[in-house]
């Protein structure tokens, strides 16, 4: 259905600067790399929230635009500068045959490729289709399902091409996004914690939600990054940053049972915005298969 000609930027902005900088992608060379590396922002199946995080950096936006050359970012600009791009930020998950092709093209013209957000790293909420009959979904929503071309799965970018760095969150955290950009420009690794939300919660001095009010909380198995937002507002974490490095989901499942949760509710808790992350997927399947641990 999509016009074949639409998979690459269709026009070149005449007179745009920076188009001669070559695509040297080696981040360790960054200090001597050409000034203002080219940045491209791409979108697949998603809500636009993660790229909006970039525009929500009101205090930093103009300095970011000064440090990188925003060469392709349709949400923000009509101008299109052709690749290769030193840095590509990719939002959204792969859900159509056309997008499988498009992500390979993007990989080929990107030096460093960073995925941003739960859709791009784990398939997002739409990965719930991976457990369902997509034909049935099609006919629930659309009167003429035959008009649609879509895959039976929603998968993260790394399932299709090599990814240099994955930034978690639904949506990503603004300051973590700025840190990733700063690290790219400085030719170093981003300093993003891999410990759990529980650690952030303790640092903030929050009361532990499941202990205080018996609400379920995925904090112990979820990667930090939000500053323990939900517990600070008196609710349990629902896992929007995805699994932490070394999760112990069996132990969490056991705790959730102790809170009196039903098995089917525990399945739902694991299957939200990072349902397709391997750890959450495995934990939910285990519970669905008839209880765990």
């Amino acid at each position, binding site marked *: 259905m999509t016009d074949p000609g639409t998979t690459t930027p269709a026009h070149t902005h005449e007179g745009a600067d920076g188009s001669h900088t070559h695509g040297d992608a080696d981040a360790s060379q960054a200090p001597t790399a050409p000034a203002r590396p080219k940045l491209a922002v791409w979108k697949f199946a998603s809500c636009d929230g993660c790229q909006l995080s970039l525009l929500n950096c009101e205090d930093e936006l103009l300095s970011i635009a000064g440090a990188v050359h925003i060469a392709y970012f349709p949400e*923000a600009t009509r101008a299109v500068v052709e690749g290769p791009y030193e840095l590509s930020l990719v939002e959204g998950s792969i859900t159509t045959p056309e997008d499988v092709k498009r992500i390979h093209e993007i990989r080929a013209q990107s030096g460093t490729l960073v995925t941003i957000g739960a859709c791009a790293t784990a398939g997002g909420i739409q990965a719930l289709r991976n457990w369902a009959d997509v034909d049935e979904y099609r006919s629930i929503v659309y009167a003429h399902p035959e008009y649609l071309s879509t895959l039976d799965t929603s998968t993260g970018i790394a399932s299709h091409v090599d990814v240099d760095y994955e930034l978690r969150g639904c949506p990503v955290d603004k300051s973590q996004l700025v840190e990733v950009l700063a690290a790219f420009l400085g030719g170093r690794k981003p300093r993003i914690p891999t410990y759990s939300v529980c650690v952030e919660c303790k640092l903030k001095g929050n009361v532990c939600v499941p202990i205080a009010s018996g609400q379920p909380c995925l904090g112990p198995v979820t990667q930090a990054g939000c500053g323990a937002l*939900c517990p600070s507002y008196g*609710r349990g974490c629902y896992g929007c940053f995805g699994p932490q490095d070394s999760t112990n989901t069996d132990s969490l499942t056991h705790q959730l049972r102790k809170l009196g949760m039903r098995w089917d509710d525990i399945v739902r808790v694991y299957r939200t915005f990072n349902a397709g992350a391997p750890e959450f997927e495995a934990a939910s399947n285990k519970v669905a298969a008839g209880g765990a641990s």
Partner: protein
Amino acid sequence: MTHQLKDGGQVLNVGMLARVEGEGGMHIEIKDRKVVSVKLNIFEPPRFYEGFLRGRKYTEPPDITARICGICPVAYQSASTEAMETICGVTTTAEIQLMRRLLYCGEWIESHSLHIFMLHAPDFLGYDSVLEMAKDHADVVNMALRLKKAGNDVMELVGGRAIHPVNVKVGGFYRMPTLTELEGLKPDLERGLEDALAAVQLVSTFDFPEMEQDYNYVSLRHPDWYPLERGTEIVATSGVRFPVAQVGEHIKEFHVEHSNALHASFDGEKYFVGPLARYSLNFDQLSPRCQEAALKAGLGETCRNPFKSIIVRTVELAYAFEEALRIIDLWTDGHAPSVPVAPRAGEGIGASEAPRGTIWHRYKIDADGVILDAQIVPPTSQNQASIEADLRLAAEQWVDLDDHTLSHRCETAIRNYDPCISCATHFLDLRIKRS
């Protein structure tokens, strides 16, 4: 960049439409200086929300449906909480309603300032992006960033986060912000109100193409306020009005081949939701200050030129600042953040005014609170037919302009709607075919 087609027609490819949320396509075919067809194609892969909401719990839609859109998550949260509360027969408190309105003001401020200054104004001022505009109009861009930030600050305090707020639940909030916290927002909101009122005058000086359409405007209506987080009725320019609960009898969705987003009709005809509709049907409910600013900017009590939507949006931006301040001034501490909501079997509708137009949700749940059926009708799909009608008129009216200028007009005409096609879109590839 015009090139010949095999059939002798011409296609002008001006690339994908930028500065909208999501990506899609547009196809205009001109033969003998007559417009033969206009299609807005929405290619966004479907994300099947209505499908996977089935089997989820009645408490989940505020978190899940927020993810349909990063730009207007509160619209989804408000409509879904209201629908669930209606089904369960629960009325929340006046304070909870006020806090929802405040959160919604934050979203209006954030989304309207993003659209007005970063997505739409570059069209009128002749730039590709706000970043380029910043070189010549630094003070406007700095003001825009400040305005937008003030909206995000409201969302962060009341909602916990600006994108996909975490503090909203069926029945109210997890935690109420305190008066002290709210008062901390006031200086920026006061400054924002002044800036927004000045911006109304500023955008009214843009050069607007003459174009008027006889739209059937449709909007929520509330007896006491300008419609925002909720309304009691749905009203239309045609004179039809009915309680929100009957919306399904008047608005029908249907599926056309060239779009992945459903179209919709109102009593069988195309219609228009969004700031122009809200404004034209609720001018009397705007504050005196905003009414005055609007009239001074040359708007009438109704506005039929879609290009002037940028002025209307800026009037609404000022209104949202004023409302936010009014609510904070009314606020006192000590109110329960939520009321308990126990599930009961039934069906219900919730509606609110997203920055880009009326949105409504319908759910059916069982006695355990498991969702049996869900329908979500966002503004952009309702407006698709109106967008196409505008494009047709624009192409007919300006058929003699050169391709470059005509294309730019058509792109601007689409951006008039602030279309949020991320719920539905991939590439907006503008092609004009002449033969």
